[in-house]
């Protein structure tokens, strides 16, 4: 991937994206997580599940906005996909560019390190030891990535492995390519 990708994403972010105050977005997401925690009475597994499910539903719609407005073409490798997710996807939607790192030698798994996370700005986890061990506050992202990538025929497993909110050193998302959905690949593109 060339340097052009960054310049072009910057341009799209600056000139072609309708923007809203990030605080409003953070507050809205925070209210959703807090409500789920209340509803499921601190059963954080269930909260994580619901966040992922919601993310999936967002991802399958968001991907069309992404493709229609960024002009991203078919990635030739999963390495390209990683670059595009970080430098184009995260950039034009959340205005951050996570670091792509920790590739496995088979090239099928990598990490995204979120130095900045607009979902979790000024957030503190519930004052509950279990929350620090079980809640993945930003879990909506795993669903968004799964949903969006599935629509471009990539079945991917996505999980958080660490989160600064839990007291970890950094916030890390792990993406693993399960398979390329060949049967769902549209004809006319090879």
């Amino acid at each position, binding site marked *: 991937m060339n340097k052009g990708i960054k310049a072009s994403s910057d341009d799209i972010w600056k000139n*072609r994206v309708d923007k809203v105050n990030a605080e409003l977005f953070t507050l809205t997401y925070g209210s959703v997580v807090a409500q789920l925690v209340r509803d499921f009475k601190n059963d954080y597994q269930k909260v994580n599940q619901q966040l992922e499910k919601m993310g999936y539903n967002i991802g399958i719609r968001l991907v069309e906005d992404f493709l229609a407005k*960024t002009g991203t*073409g078919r990635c030739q490798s999963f390495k390209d996909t990683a670059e595009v997710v970080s430098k184009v996807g995260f950039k034009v939607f959340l205005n951050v560019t996570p670091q792509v790192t920790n590739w496995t030698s088979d090239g099928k798994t990598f990490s995204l390190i979120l130095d900045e996370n607009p979902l979790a700005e000024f957030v503190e986890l519930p004052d509950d030891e279990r929350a620090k061990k079980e809640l993945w506050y930003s879990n909506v992202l795993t669903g968004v990535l799964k949903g969006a990538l599935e629509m471009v025929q990539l079945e991917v497993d996505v999980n958080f492995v660490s989160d600064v909110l839990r007291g970890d050193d950094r916030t890390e998302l792990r993406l693993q390519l399960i398979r390329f959905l060949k049967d769902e690949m549209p004809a006319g593109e090879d």
Partner: protein
Amino acid sequence: MIQSLFILNRSGGLIYQHDLNDGLNKLSANEHLILAGTIHGVFAIASKLTPTAVKVSAQPRAQSQGSAVNGNTSGLKSIETDKFSMYIFQTLTGVKFLLVTDPAQGDLNSGCDTAENVLRKIYALYADYVMKNPFYEIDMPIRVDLFDRKIAELVKAL
């Protein structure tokens, strides 16, 4: 002049048809469905016919400055007749946008480019007014007034 727009879902089902001018004879709803199904089939066969060498050279660009990439690299791209032309744009998610226009003036490629530009804008409208409508179910027929209006405005402004 743009005559008509068709949108086909990932499995080739017709989910949208909009006559934007009256330069063509009207088809029945059933004929629209048959046309969509036929194009979907011919499109796939055309892709099989396309020689491999051509396919490789026609890979979509990695990124094209803010306007959607046509994933249609080896399928049926256009149909030219004396009375109308038809152009096909396919998104990476497999949605097809079909534009029926008056016959291309000048060479075939310029007609394709013009149509593709319009179809890119239509795709952006689809992303905004269809996908962000929470009452619209993906792959189902599009019945969204605002989308109809936006398409009509876009075509009128060309």
